[in-house]
């Protein structure tokens, strides 16, 4: 079909094919016709088949009683509730593991990506092994492997008894068992909302301060301190009020102690930094500050008011069945404690969630590491050299010159990795985590036999999620696009 052939007016049919004026139209009409024909064929078959087994499509089953239990639910649920509610529980669980995975995968990925570029031979090789190892082995295998490690190699709760051979981590507050990980959990009291409101307001205040500082810098050239005031504005009010409302005298004592503690750390850091110059000085200062913090918290703190409530929970646990430290009833902390055959108190993160979370984070982290590495390499070396020529220090060069440009390259694939992680969370089926595929696309489907409706809803959920994220990403891309000509 070469274009050079002259169209002949007498031959109408061939003109539809060879004349570029009509050809596009012909092709489109043909395609549309074929696609519609195909869809009609499929739908006709579907209706005939459903008619034959007497299952006309309808979604009434969502309102009927589910009758099954779900191991993990973020919203109140019991087996007397509806299939629709069960599906919602599944959706929340999918979003939970996806959200947790995205956060940890980003942290792991950024660290691994930066470290793989490091000049340090051992570290860069180690990161290369991590990235290649995880990228080239199926995710399903990693999930099963982590799950096997969690269930086969971790001690049973009974091993945590006296002489059982296992011990709790982090000052006796965290227990890793073959049934899951037990963590301390906050218990919200009746006045928690006051603290929450204060926290939100002070974080807003911190942002306003940053805006003010930035404006002051651009308007007057005055460089206001950023990090410390932001942290102080964000957290000092809520800590002060929490401590003072509990017990005014003891709270005041704690506040003074806290202030001295922070002042001491800052003083040690500044002092050493001033005395010993250069990189080594900064290094020594960090080490000394951390040591001071630890020594002060561990040794001196318990004598302040006799309560190491904030920094070492286990010592403050009162005798009693329910392990709650009654420091301030506004917010209390419940610690896991071994009772009978299992742990009580705190919050249990069951093994399926742990395995899925760890495997998804490590696997996606390997991909994110490559994205971050590519993003940093994509910023041409001239940019760094120019920044150095202007006299900028390496970390300022990184944060003001390289990273803003690298972000443009990094963010879109990063978000599509988040999307991949969310879709991969459907591999929960391998470890029995109750995500939306397990509730709506699993038990509900099997109980009601409504395969078509369940799969349709399941597909629509994932599709809606990814289309929303793509939509947001497109807006971002358009905003960040290099403005050329």
């Amino acid at each position: 079909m070469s274009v050079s052939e002259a169209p002949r007016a007498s031959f109408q049919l061939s003109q539809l094919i060879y004349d570029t004026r009509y050809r596009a139209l012909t092709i489109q009409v043909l395609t549309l016709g074929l696609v519609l024909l195909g869809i009609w064929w499929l739908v006709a078959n579907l209706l005939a088949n459903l008619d034959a087994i007497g299952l006309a499509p309808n979604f009434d089953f969502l309102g009927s009683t589910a009758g099954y239990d779900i191991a993990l639910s973020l919203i109140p649920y019991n087996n007397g509730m509806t299939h629709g509610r069960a599906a919602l529980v599944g959706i929340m669980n999918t979003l939970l593991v996806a959200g947790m995975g995205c956060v940890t995968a980003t942290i792991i990925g950024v660290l691994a990506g930066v470290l793989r570029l490091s000049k340090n031979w051992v570290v860069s090789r180690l990161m290369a092994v991590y990235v290649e190892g995880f990228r080239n082995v199926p995710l399903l295998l990693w999930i099963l492997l982590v799950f096997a490690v969690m269930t086969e190699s971790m001690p049973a709760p009974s091993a945590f008894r006296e002489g059982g051979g296992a011990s709790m981590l982090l000052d006796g507050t965290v227990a890793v068992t073959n049934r899951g990980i037990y963590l301390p959990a906050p218990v919200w009291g009746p006045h928690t909302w006051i603290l929450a409101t204060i926290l939100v307001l002070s974080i807003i205040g911190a942002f306003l301060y940053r805006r003010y500082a930035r404006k002051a810098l651009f308007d007057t050239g005055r460089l206001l301190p950023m990090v410390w005031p932001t942290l102080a504005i964000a957290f000092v009010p809520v800590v002060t009020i929490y401590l003072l409302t509990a017990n005014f005298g003891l709270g005041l004592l704690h506040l003074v102690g806290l202030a001295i503690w922070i002042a001491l750390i800052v003083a040690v850091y500044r002092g050493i930094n001033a005395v010993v110059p250069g990189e080594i000085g900064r290094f020594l200062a960090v080490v000394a500050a951390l040591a001071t913090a630890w020594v002060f918290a561990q040794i001196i703190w318990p004598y302040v008011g006799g309560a190491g409530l904030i920094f070492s929970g286990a010592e403050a646990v009162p005798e009693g069945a329910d392990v709650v430290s009654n420091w301030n009833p506004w917010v209390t902390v419940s610690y896991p404690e071994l009772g009978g055959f299992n742990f009580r108190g705190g919050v249990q993160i069951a093994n399926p969630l742990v395995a899925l979370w760890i495997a998804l984070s490590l696997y996606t982290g390997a991909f994110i590491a490559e994205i971050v590495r590519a993003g940093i390499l994509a910023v041409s070396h001239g940019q760094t050299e120019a920044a150095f020529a202007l006299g900028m220090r390496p970390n300022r060069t990184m944060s003001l010159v390289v990273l803003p440009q690298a972000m443009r390259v990094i963010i879109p694939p990063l978000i599509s990795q988040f999307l991949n992680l969310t879709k991969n969370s459907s591999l929960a089926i391998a470890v029995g985590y109750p995500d939306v595929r397990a509730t709506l696309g699993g038990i509900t489907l099997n109980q009601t036999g409504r395969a078509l409706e369940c799969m349709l809803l399941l597909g629509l959920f994932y599709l809606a999620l990814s289309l929303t994220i793509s939509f947001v990403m497109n807006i971002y891309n358009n905003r960040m696009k290099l403005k050329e000509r």
Partner: protein
Amino acid sequence: MSGTHAQTVLYVRDSMLPQAAPPLGQTGAIRWLRENLFSGPLSIILTLASIWFVWFVFSHIYHWFANSIWNAASLTECRAIRDATIGADASAACFAVITDRWQQLLFGFYPSSQYWRPVAALALFIVGIFPILFPSLPRKLLIATAMLPFVLFFLLWGGSIWGPVAIAFGFLIASASVKFLAPIAGSLVGVTGAIVLPILFWLFLAGPIAGALQDILPIGIRSIQSKEFGGFTLSLIIGITGIVLSLPLGILLALGRQSDMFIVNKLSTAFIEVIRGIPLIVWLFTASLLLNYFLPPGTNFDLMLRVIIMVTLFASAYIAEVVRGGLAALPKGQYEGANSLGLSYWQSMRLIVLPQALKISIPGIVNTFIGLFKDTTLVVFIGLLDPLGLTGAIRASTDWNGIYWELYVFIALMFFVFCFSMGRYSLYLERKLQRENR
């Protein structure tokens, strides 16, 4: 000049010092250590932490590997051997499960007398794709490559040889139609004939002809059912078929999405977005649970074929996005240049645009292939016995009840070898096709 200098400026040296060796800290291993391991406080911490980590992992795994037992018939026997030779409670891997069951991991439930067939198929496939992988080989060899699918199908599934021959003959009719019919009756008739004639042939003539030929000349090998396939044979069949089929489909979809034609563009976009927006596992469940609803009552076709179709469609949507990236990255001048030469759409795509766009998208395409191959493990959820599914089957036997790590390590290693070599090949290709100076 230097003489006057020496007299007027006292501090300028006028004689050269003999060359000295560089200081000890600036040469050889010490310099390398200083630069690469201990260049600063952070670097020192990282080095020490990494060395500690490597030692930690190594110390935990070393004995397990070093003590591994390779000859035993069951896990209890393995433990007995360990207790006798190394000592009770010592950490020892029992790789005897691999020596005992490797055939199952590689071939699933394929009859053991026929193991040569998947092996021969793999060998033939590797030899057969040489003409595509290495362009320096003579082009005539591509004809042999074109015959490969039918040979491989015959080798793997067996049965009468006349079935694959009849299907291949349909393609022969198609090419003959283009070659001989087109010059006589115009290219439109030729192309229509190439589509309609083989379909008519397959629908009405292929079956009877193959049957008749089988009666006259019964050539065939033992027929193998799809449910007997398993292990890495299954992964490789699904993976390779998916890879081979998804590339052309993906390219077509990408062209459709880049097209100016409104309907084609929107249809391609919708297809790509819907496929990509939903996890593969949901698609696989759809294939196993729902596909029968969409076909005429009474039809029931092979689960493995359904999986291959689903995996192919899934991968092609991802390939389409990768290729679209390549098409978008190509300077507009290339498209305009092709148009100004008077090339038709397909000519300009085939000769100018796609060779360059595909070159740009090689890393992405190979990554998609690697992903596809890894995703073949998901078929375990709809009842096909891939290697991971077989670990369950192996554990279900009393001999090997309770064995995890050895199987997982073996499977992970196999996947790593396949995927890593694909990744390396893509790097080789990238470097080979690199045209710019760097």
